[in-house]
């Protein structure tokens, strides 16, 4: 990009050169100015306020906002409910990442194999991602309904369970079922990313490996897997960050129940139900940093990988 500027600029006089650079700067500033205003007022400003407030005691119920240093963060470490919420979120992340990666890889391999009607199968696969999460959660809460839900009646009539279950009575089952709704929505993203990676593998590589006598399993582990590792890393980071920020599904399916309360629901409860504003803000700051670190790890890995070629 800079070389073309240099080339076109060598023809210009020095004065013209300076004014061209100057006008390019002004145009650049003008083009991004609305973005600076919107993001500055509605995102970066509020983030700075949150960081600042999390070091203070901001309670609408108590007078004054004294500086308390890291007290909020220290209290978070020993708050049983917060730890519980972190564990729930960890469970969501593990369930979601494993299921989305395996399912998404399976769907991508299938879509890559299929030739007839791929367009329509892809549309069907992508559909859950496009639907409002709230509607998904409502549809699934009806499926999970203890007395008239589809899950109970299908499992009962096939003899897999002996009696109807109230699914959300058991914490592990409840976490898995909430995660499943999330997986239903986010699996398309993993599938699409991996499909793109699969389609970029040249067919000659497979032919060459087959000539060397590689079977389907070796083809997959020696050709496919290494060549989609970049896409896999992106898909993993996406599914981790999205599962980390799970809110809508758990909220609609099981409300504020401690069994399924994710970290973000805990933030909402601390700030808007217990009205401990700065305490909730401090927790949200931790979530933000965790999300940033996860994204960064994967982005750097991908960046390093793509620089080889």
């Amino acid at each position: 990009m800079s070389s073309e500027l240099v080339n076109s600029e060598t023809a210009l006089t020095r004065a013209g050169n300076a004014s061209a650079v100057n006008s390019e700067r002004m145009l650049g500033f003008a083009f991004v100015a609305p973005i600076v205003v919107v993001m500055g007022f509605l995102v970066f400003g509020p983030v700075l306020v949150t960081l600042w407030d999390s070091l203070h005691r901001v309670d609408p119920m108590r007078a004054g906002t004294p500086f308390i240093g890291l007290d909020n963060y220290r209290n978070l470490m020993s708050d049983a409910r917060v730890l519980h919420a972190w564990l729930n979120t960890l469970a969501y992340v593990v369930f979601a990442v494993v299921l989305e990666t395996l399912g998404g890889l399976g769907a991508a391999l299938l879509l890559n194999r299929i030739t007839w009607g791929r367009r329509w199968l892809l549309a069907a696969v992508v559909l859950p991602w496009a639907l409002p999460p709230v509607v998904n959660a409502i549809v699934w809460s009806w499926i999970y309904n203890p007395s008239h839900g589809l899950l109970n009646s299908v499992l009962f009539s096939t003899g897999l369970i002996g009696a109807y279950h109230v699914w959300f009575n058991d914490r592990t089952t409840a976490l898995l079922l909430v995660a499943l709704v999330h997986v239903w929505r986010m699996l398309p993203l993993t599938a699409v990313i991996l499909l793109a990676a699969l389609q970029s593998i040249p067919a000659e590589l497979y032919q060459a490996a087959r000539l060397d006598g590689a079977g389907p399993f070796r083809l997959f582990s020696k050709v496919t897997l290494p060549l989609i590792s970049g896409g896999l890393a992106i898909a993993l980071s996406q599914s981790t960050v999205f599962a980390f920020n799970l809110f809508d599904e758990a909220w609609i399916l099981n409300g504020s129940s401690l069994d399924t309360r994710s970290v973000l629901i805990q933030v909402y409860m601390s700030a808007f139900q217990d009205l401990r504003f700065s305490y909730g803000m401090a927790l949200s700051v931790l979530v933000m940093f965790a999300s940033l670190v996860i994204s960064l790890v994967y982005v750097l890995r991908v960046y390093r990988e793509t620089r080889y070629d």
Partner: protein
Amino acid sequence: MRPSLLSRIGLLACTALLLIWSLGPVYWALVTSLSAPIDLVSASPHFFPVHPTLEHYRQLLGATSFYEGSAVQSVWPQFSRALVNSLLTSLLATIVTVALAAVGAYAFVRLKFPGRNVLFVLVVASLAIPAYTVMIPLYRLMVSMKLIDTYFGVTMIYVSAFLPLALWLMRSVYQSLPLSLEEAAWMDGAGRTYTLFRIVLPLAAPGLIASAILTFLSAWGQFMIPLVFSPTLSTKPLTVLIPEFVSRNYVDYGLMNAAGMLAIIPPIVVVLFLNRYLVQGLMAGSGK
């Protein structure tokens, strides 16, 4: 190498399984929304409506309706209001977001100005900020500017939430466009702005459509933001209204599924007719 019969059957079985996983819940919601309330609580599930009825839809869309023989008030006034709110805020947010991203991403790719890279990294990094990190200061800001429960307020928050992804996507689109066309235009004396609007943007149309689709669907499905910033029906969208059917009457699953079916019509239309752009957007938005 011809695929054997066995592998064909396996492929077919996997396809069927994938279709059931993806479309099954949507089909089940459709069946539920068309079933008479009495069939919803019957002992065994019916995989198609036994006594198909439009009762639930009539309750949503009609002036008055009947529920088990007695007249009940229709929710059409609230429902239509929320539908208009959803459409207006999503479309406005889409137009503003795509316009800002189209111009801004061009500056990030083709124009040199101080602070360019820092600004871009900051904006993209904001993708990792959970909505609740900014919620409380944002709420105070909106209250002080009297923007709570206004189209302008909600739309601008949507824009700030979905702009980073649109920028990221548009940047990768511009980076893949050949520079030679622009250079030719500059040689002919065309200005930067003219080149952007008359030459670059038409070429970037698929990318613009993809960002518009991603933004529209994200705004259409948004729940957390309007839950806080759209407290009354003057801006409340469908996503906030529909879960309220639980507390208002009782848990009326027929009605909720019917409302859900209506709320997913726009996403379904997008997936059916614009899926190519949507998939491109998902790939480009997450990759590169």
